[in-house]
């Protein structure tokens, strides 16, 4: 496998933390546990069959699959796709009301109560990782009991997207602050990373040279999606192996 050089984070160090995620495509087996984990953690609505017909399903994290070749030499690839938390995000400069912007820790913020629903950000996202509440989210009778109290339920007419489980980051930082220490690597786990059975998803502070995500990002396997667009995502994908069996 040729080495791919990734220019990593020419990001002005502003803050102690710069959250990043690596997704190992060699490990991902497309099981969908992260998809449900994300949905459960973030109160993402089940829109129902009728809305799915309109293409409005709302998984913040979805597993894209691509088919290459024809029978019998078929290769299928899985590509978990969520908000890439770009450093130079196309979405943030087009929002007229600052409902989306980059926060000092390198995350792309979506502030639901500020959003007026122009949907420009969604149009400008090359990853198509943003979702719109076409209707008020509905939960089947009783199912609102399952809602996570840390995450607001979105109203109709606002955009939403992956937050890298901001509520967990906040809680992790809060605990670290109580103990008077910086956040340790592995303290904070977004729902997808925590649940991923193959450990394909790693989350951490890329500014910390000892963090796992820093290691992986510099492992030479890391690439970013649509690198040529210059968006500098904080989500790095680790390329799959070449499969040297054959």
């Amino acid at each position, binding site marked *: 496998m040729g080495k791919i050089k990734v220019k990593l984070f020419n990001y002005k160090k502003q803050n102690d933390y710069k959250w990043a995620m690596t997704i190992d495509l060699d490990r991902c087996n497309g099981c969908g*546990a992260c998809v449900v984990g994300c949905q459960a953690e973030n109160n993402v609505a089940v829109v129902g069959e009728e809305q*799915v017909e309109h293409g409005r399903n709302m998984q913040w994290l979805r597993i894209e699959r691509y088919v290459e070749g024809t029978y019998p030499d078929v290769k299928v690839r899985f*590509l978990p796709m969520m908000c890439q938390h770009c450093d130079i995000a196309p979405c943030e400069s087009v929002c007229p009301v600052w409902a989306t912007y980059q926060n000092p820790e390198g995350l792309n913020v979506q502030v639901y109560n500020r959003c007026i629903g122009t949907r420009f950000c969604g149009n400008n996202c090359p990853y198509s990782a943003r979702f719109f509440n076409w209707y008020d989210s509905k939960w089947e009778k009783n199912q609102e009991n399952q809602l996570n109290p840390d995450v607001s339920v979105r109203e109709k007419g606002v955009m939403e997207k992956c937050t890298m489980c901001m509520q967990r980051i906040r809680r992790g930082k809060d605990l670290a602050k109580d103990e008077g220490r910086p956040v340790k690597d592995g303290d904070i786990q977004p729902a997808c990373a925590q649940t991923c059975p193959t450990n394909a998803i790693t989350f951490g502070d890329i500014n910390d040279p000892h963090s796992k995500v820093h290691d992986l990002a510099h492992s030479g396997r890391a690439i970013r999606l649509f690198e040529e667009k210059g968006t500098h995502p904080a989500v790095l994908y680790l390329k799959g192996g070449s499969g040297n069996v054959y």
Partner: protein
Amino acid sequence: MDRRRFLKLGALTASTGMLGACGQTAQQIVPFVNPPDDGVNPVDGFWYATTCKECNAGCGVMIRTVDGRAKKLEGNPGHPISGGKACATGQAGVQKVYHPDRLKSAMLLSGERGSGVYKPISWTEAVTVLSDKLAGAKGSVFFLNNGSNDVTAGVANAIFKDSEKFVSASNHDAGAESLRQGGAALTGLPQTPYPDMANADFSLLLGADIFEWDRSPVFYSRSFGASRRDRPSSRGRMVYMGSRLSSTAVSCDKWIPAKPGQLGIIALSIASVVVDGVIEKGLARAIPRNTLGRYSDALRKYRPERVAEKVDVDAETLYKLAAPFVNEAPAIVIAGDGVTGYSNGVAGLDAVELLNMISYEIGKEKLTAKPRSTPESDQDLKDRMLEWFGPAPRKQTFAKLKSLTEKMAAGEYAVGLIHNTNPVFDTPNALKFKDALGKVAFVVSFANVMDETANQADLILPDNHWLEGWSAQIPDFVPGVVALNLGQPVVQKFQETKAAADSLLEAGAKAGLKIPAANGEEYIKKVISAFRSEMLEIPPALSDKEAWNFLLRRGGSWPSENDTELTATPASDKLWAFKGNLASDEPVFEGTNDHPYHLHIYQTVFAGRGSGVNHGWLQESPDPITTVMWQWWIEINTGEAGKLGINEGDLITVSSVHGSVTGPAYLYQGLRPDVISIPAGFGHTNYGEMANGRGANAMDLLGLSMDEASGGLAARSQMVSVKKAGGSVVLLRNGNPDGEDKGEAFQL
């Protein structure tokens, strides 16, 4: 502090967010009557260890509860199966607590059987009805579950074990029985072979859809990830052989579409090359030469050149596949439904086991191999413990279910107890289970949502959701160790339900039967006190109550990683002493000349055997391969579909000698042209609004071919025909069909 009381009063804040425009709504705060211990943060929520019961794997999980409501399921980091991870279905289990279709109380049939007319009755009344029937049955009772060994099965077994007529059967994963039998036949160990994929350089999956619905998707996924990238030395490689490029096959490096029913022969063929290679290179010195020679002779007729044409895989490929076993051991083979789903499964399994043993021996010489089986002493303990939780899974074959059905049809049973399974829906149509059930005088279902089987019951005693009640389980599949999973109620009961074991015990007591304990919780405590001395992981200094709390906190009992002895050996002596015949029969297929296609029924990640179909999260998660949501489909090879003039979404009818189903076609490159593949679990008729009428039941096509050697259902041996039914529907796919081959956009 009284935990239940605490849970009841746990609602501290009502802060679930709604982005309302005008606030000012009157809100109430309900404080604790007794505050929780210091150091507990009631706002963050409490984490409880319990055991997931969404499938039989028995993953230890942690549940986050806030305000007395279960919010999120995560894996229990210490648990040997889940290791802190969880699968989609398990996580969705939380939402089932709040499922709108849950039954609200005990119900007694008040109309015709199958009419679905029930009247709610009180629990006292319900238990009385049950006890009367049990008393009157005089032991002609059967108990049917999904094959999990849990408290209910154990209690049923304990109550009725003196009755000769009592049968405790199970309705569970087709093919898995023969897998167990295969392991037993060759190694002499009555356990499931445990392939240590995590440490293997090379894994050959023979039709084993290990990520989809085999014994533990979570464990296999963890092993897969570890094998791929956790070992610094090399990247684990996988090759999948089978007729369909399943979600598992996709993750492997290579898919080899072998001919259906011939995977056992392929295993033998590879084994022949490996044995010869081992002899030639002088590897695996612990194995007697003459033994190897005997194997070599027995396998000679399966040399790749001889079988290549028959199995539709060229000889060169077979040699290549054999090479890693000799050169890079430990390499492993994992056999799945692709081997066991045919009438000749067992011979293939023997070859698989032989390969694994040889590979292990070579690995041992290289000091890289890890133990692959439970030590015999532990196995004894496991067997003894299993006795408390119903029949051991290896005894629960399809043959047993079949004979039970026959007896039911003969009207031999007065009372049938059905717990946690839906045989009317997911047994082959040819079994005529529903008709047989009609002959049972009184059927009791413990389902907590209405399903096809519960709809045939006379009495429904809704069981608790597993988050609401006690459970214990000896997980069948724990790599190399004996474990006891404990489940505890983490939330208050959401509906007026009652644990099935409790109902049984109460009714049994009332009927004057001998009951093993007062209730389920007591029963579990009894088990623990019986085995406490043998379960080393409970510190001996603890009192019984402390030990109980210790286990609850941990979520069960299993040796921690440091305790695991790495010296356990497979029973190689038995293997080498094996004198059986490794020759494989030709698979028997059921169908006429008009049925040119092999039927391949498989379980999708989300729908499973049908339990995921009435669940929003699972239904809306796109199937990994087809990306279809909310729908059912029939897969056909793209080229073959072209020949038949079928486009995506066209309705096609698949017929076998037993029946036919009609559904939209999904054109897939990753399927052998002579195979039609259909996801199971769809086509419910009485399983809640979300599931009803969604697709058709693939089981309608299935006959009763069995692997006689193991007593397992040969679920893949059905032949079918395909024709266009006219009309078409739009498949609801997450991914656009036009874009699915445009993955190069990402330059991965």
